[in-house]
């Protein structure tokens, strides 16, 4: 092998390897601003040596592969945190929307409760005044409307969240389909020993997007990946995507179904989990509290009303101020209404005389009595408002924490997988010098060959 042809082949291997390395560097520079791109490194290995007698000769260099620089654990952490952020974002947005219904304004339930008891207090100063009696009925109507409106708003929000769940399931299905296709392309390239770095980058970006929607576990195999939810429901296995479905239920919301199994309650991360938590836990919780308050308040007022006497001195037995709430109180806020239309039927008197205000005072005293959860109406309502505020504050803090962690992790990923233009410039010079040197060797060998040819012809 120690001839000029072999030396020429060795020099050529250097030219080819350096050319490949220069192409890799050029590709890195071109993608320096491409989101999700992982820088690539040429892997150069020495060619198999040739043993000739007592001597061993090298045969140059081989560009074995071009590999992308990635940190699997870091990417896994980014995906996990993206799931948390997706969940917290969705939950926070929903809770903030819920909170709007409880902000202090003239139409909110808290103000309506105060106005209602104030109107009773005014009536007790002049029990036979018809305009004051009408004022109590109006305030009672406003209170019922405030409950109805808030309950209706919460139900509408719940319906919108349910629609969002359906849309998110559809987005998840699109992403899993794309990831399955990429798995196929990556597998095809890897099988023939090609670099699939670009497709792997695209797949990583899609998995990041998927992580923001649903909790994803990535199981890596030699040439492909399997994606499942954290409870083990398959989303992608190799080139096959498993579709999720949003299946309407009798409760007028959609369950998330995979292969016929209801996995709604098992989702723990991503936007889907946040939407479901708001739809199935947070809002129903607030509605149940409102029902307790509406039911307790209506029952307490009706109890006092039915034991008093109206303006005509008649005992008001069976004449309720509010329509009796449903048994168990479920739906009481949504269905709360004023049953009384005639102001003279309002039982203000406790003894039948038109000037008596004993029953009005008893009705006013409800303001300081326990009507729901062993609390006064105002305290119970304050508790509801505080609970929502607390949930918003917790979700905000969780969201902030996720943002901070993701920022840190993305910075780390950038330092590992991102393109450093300075480093690439240095690589460029290094490969260029090596290419020039190899070319010089080729020229020298060529000259030497010419010399040899000339020697034989002379």
């Amino acid at each position, binding site marked *: 092998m120690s001839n000029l042809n072999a030396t020429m082949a060795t020099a050529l291997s250097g030219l080819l390897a350096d050319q490949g390395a220069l192409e890799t560097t050029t590709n890195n520079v071109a993608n320096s601003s491409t989101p999700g791109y992982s820088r690539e490194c040429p892997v150069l290995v020495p060619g198999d040596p040739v043993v000739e007698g007592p001597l061993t000769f090298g045969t140059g260099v081989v560009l074995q592969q071009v590999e992308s620089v990635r940190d699997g654990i870091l990417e896994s952490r980014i995906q996990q945190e993206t799931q948390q952020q997706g969940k917290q974002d969705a939950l926070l947005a929903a809770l903030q929307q819920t909170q709007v219904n409880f902000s202090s304004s003239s139409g909110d339930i808290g103000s309506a409760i105060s106005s209602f008891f104030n109107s009773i207090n005014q009536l007790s100063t002049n029990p036979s005044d018809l305009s004051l009696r009408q004022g109590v009925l109006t305030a009672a109507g406003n209170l019922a409307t405030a409950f109805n409106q808030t309950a209706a708003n919460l139900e509408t929000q719940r319906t919108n969240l349910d629609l969002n769940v359906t849309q998110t399931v559809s987005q998840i299905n699109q992403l899993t389909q794309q990831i399955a296709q990429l798995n196929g392309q990556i597998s095809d390239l890897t099988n023939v020993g090609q670099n699939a770095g670009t497709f792997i980058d695209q797949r990583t970006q899609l998995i990041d997007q998927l992580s923001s929607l649903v909790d994803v576990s990535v199981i890596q195999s030699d040439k492909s990946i399997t994606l499942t939810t954290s409870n083990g429901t398959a989303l992608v296995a190799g080139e096959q995507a498993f579709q999720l479905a949003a299946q309407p239920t009798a409760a007028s919301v959609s369950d998330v179904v995979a292969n016929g199994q209801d996995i709604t309650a098992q989702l723990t991360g991503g936007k889907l989990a946040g939407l479901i938590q708001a739809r199935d836990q947070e809002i129903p919780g607030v509605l149940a509290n409102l029902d307790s308050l509406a039911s307790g308040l209506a029952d307490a007022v009706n109890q006092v009303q039915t034991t008093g006497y109206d303006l005509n001195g008649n005992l008001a037995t069976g004449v309720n101020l509010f329509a009796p709430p449903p048994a168990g109180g479920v739906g009481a806020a949504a269905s709360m209404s004023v049953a009384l239309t005639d102001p003279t039927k309002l039982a203000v008197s406790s003894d039948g005389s038109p000037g008596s205000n004993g029953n009005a005072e008893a009705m006013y005293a409800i303001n300081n009595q326990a009507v729901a959860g062993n609390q006064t109406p105002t305290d119970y309502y304050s508790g509801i408002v505080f609970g929502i505020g607390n949930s918003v*504050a917790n979700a905000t803090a*969780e969201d902030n924490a996720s943002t901070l962690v993701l920022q840190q992790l993305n910075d780390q990923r950038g330092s590992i997988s991102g393109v450093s233009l300075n480093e690439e410039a240095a690589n460029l010079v290094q490969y260029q010098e090596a290419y020039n040197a190899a070319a010089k060797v080729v020229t020298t060998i060529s000259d030497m060959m010419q010399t040899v040819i000339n020697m034989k012809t002379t």
Partner: protein
Amino acid sequence: MNHPRDVASPPPPLTGIAPLALLRQLAASLEGGQRPILALDVEQMQRHSTEQMRLCAALHTLASSSAQASSGSCSKAAAGKEPPQLARELEQAGQRVLHFGRVQAALLRRTRRFLGVLQNLEVSAGVTYGPPLNAPRPHGAGGGGH
């Protein structure tokens, strides 16, 4: 953005510092403590924790002395009559402490989870399914018929 004061510098004397200042210091320390948690810088985390404990103790002392003072009949009139501006600022500072406290708790939960994952990785790497190849075989083990 608020930059936390250098925790390495000697702590200021607590005497005469109003609760508002203490709350602001505590909020700044909690905010400044976020980066060390993210970077797993244990030394800085410890410094921030020490400072936060010191500030909490100072606040506790202030609250106790304030409660004692307000229990006296002559101080009752003065108690709870802070200027509205000061009350607002106290409320805001308290909210900031609450918020950064919640964020810190969320960050610590994440860090703990990550360390748990690392610990599991470490443990699973050391698991073996059988005794080491050069381990002595117990007497009577195996069915060699000896």
